[in-house]
């Protein structure tokens, strides 16, 4: 565990010294501020629009951070051969990989926390009250982001950052649209086609499980069972991706 923490600490330091991170933070902050402008132009409840755009920007810029930094993390170590000196030290390969994952997950936590506090403060200026539900939405955004981090690291083990980014972005978009398959399944007659689609839905990620933005924006109740099942789904998916990544990385031969 100690060695994982050492690698995680270095990964965190590497991420926070990466200029890309600050660029993304800047854009996330700007989008939250711009949501006020959008609210002025739109018809309807202005606070809801600010919340909608704000939460969406937390999710989108967090995802971009996970993908842009995550896909380069392991690849850079392999490409620049820093991994040679690390693997020559008393460290297991899975410790290296998990260290990278936890380092970036912690970076995501810090960034998301900062963005959420900023968003909450921005919201407070307009409503003069704190909305605890925003933190709940942010928590599930965080689970989605660490899942995306695990996916980005998995792809970066065996492909270039550009390809890994494309794969990870595909995972992100498929994950958010896969629920559409359920509608299709509901409209199809029973048979082979329906079974295939159902299997496909089970195989594909469903990132909408972590999307509580609508409920938070419209002050709808979120049942505890739904929260628990979403958290369990996320944690199992993350575990599955990490085990897969470790298995591939342990067999990786660095030529």
């Amino acid at each position, binding site marked *: 565990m100690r060695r994982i923490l050492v690698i995680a600490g270095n990964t965190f330091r590497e991420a926070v*010294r990466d200029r890309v991170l600050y660029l993304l933070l800047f854009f996330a902050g700007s989008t939250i501020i711009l949501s006020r402008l959008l609210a002025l132009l739109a018809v309807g409840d202005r606070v809801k629009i600010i919340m909608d755009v704000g939460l969406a920007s937390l999710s989108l810029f967090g995802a971009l951070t996970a993908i842009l930094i995550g896909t380069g993390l392991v690849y850079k170590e392999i490409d620049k051969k820093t*991994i*040679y*000196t690390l*693997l020559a030290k008393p460290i297991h390969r899975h410790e290296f990989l998990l260290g990278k994952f936890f380092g970036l997950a912690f970076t995501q936590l810090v960034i998301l926390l900062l963005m959420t506090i900023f968003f909450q403060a921005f919201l407070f200026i307009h409503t003069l009250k704190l909305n605890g539900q925003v933190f709940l939405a942010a928590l599930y955004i965080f689970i989605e982001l660490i899942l995306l981090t695990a996916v980005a690291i998995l792809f970066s083990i065996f492909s270039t950052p550009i390809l890994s980014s494309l794969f990870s972005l595909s995972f992100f978009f498929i994950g958010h649209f896969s629920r559409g398959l359920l509608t299709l399944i509901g409209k199809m007659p029973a048979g082979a086609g329906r079974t295939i689609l159902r299997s496909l839905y089970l195989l594909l990620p469903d990132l909408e499980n972590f999307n509580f933005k609508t409920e938070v924006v419209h002050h709808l109740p979120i049942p505890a069972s739904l929260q628990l099942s979403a958290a369990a789904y996320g944690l199992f998916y993350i575990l599955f991706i990490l085990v897969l990544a470790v298995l591939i990385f342990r067999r990786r031969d660095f030529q």
Partner: protein
Amino acid sequence: MAAVLKIEHLRKSYSPGFIPHKKEILKDVSLEVEAGEIFGYLGPNGAGKTTTLKCLLGVSFPDSGTISLFGQPYHSLKAKERIGYLPESPYFYDHLTAAEFLDFYGRLFALGQAERAERVAGLLRLVGLEQAADLRLRKFSRGMLQRVGLAQALINRPDLLFLDEPMGGLDPVGRKELRDIILQLKQEGRTVFLCSHILQDIEMICDRVAILVAGRIMKAGRLRDLISEKVLFTELEIEGVGRAELEKFGECLTGRDGRFLLKVFDQGRVGVVLELVRDRRGRLHSLLPRTQTLEDLFMGMVKQP
């Protein structure tokens, strides 16, 4: 002496790109390195030196064969706690300063904070980078990276140190300093495994060498056993004697200021040449008996079909 490193029948092949044809890089490599010696691992570019190191360090997996470090499997953490490694053309985390970088590697060996601080300062002093302790590695020159790379390899005070082309990127002063450090490590009882194709350095500091050509060990042993002390030829620099006369004794080259450089392969005829110079009232500027060098041996190995 006990062997700290033992390689037996090591084979390694790679598939270049997507072509399912494997290229064999190491072909049945076996060698032993004894405690306290400086072992030179010689070979031309592409011979398989770095591949051997990658297998030793667990970066690459051998196809077959066994490797043991201090009598333990090469991938055991206990063995790795006792080794240090400096890669060829090192590139390190450029977001860290030299001191942060060494501290990070010190943490991997579970060194306490005070001990890390002491070792980091000592190592930066040893490699001449005290002034650059707080400079980020992205601002380092190649030679400075080589120095900080050596420092990271020594952070755990290793019993066995692997150096892959350590002289690359260093200026003559740096090379001399590195040679001194290696000799100092030997004096402290540490073992050094030195991969290089710079024969001069190997010849100056190594106790034993192995010559690797096209993935095979062509020769291994003590330098004095490998290199014959027999005089190969005598080189004479002569002035005032005609070329036609000198050519009867061996190879003759025209030098500067009307001098000739004569290589006499038959040692019995050197005296005859000296008499000829005296008779012709010529001048002998130098006389140098040439014994076999590591370069002669190496070139002989490399040029063999």
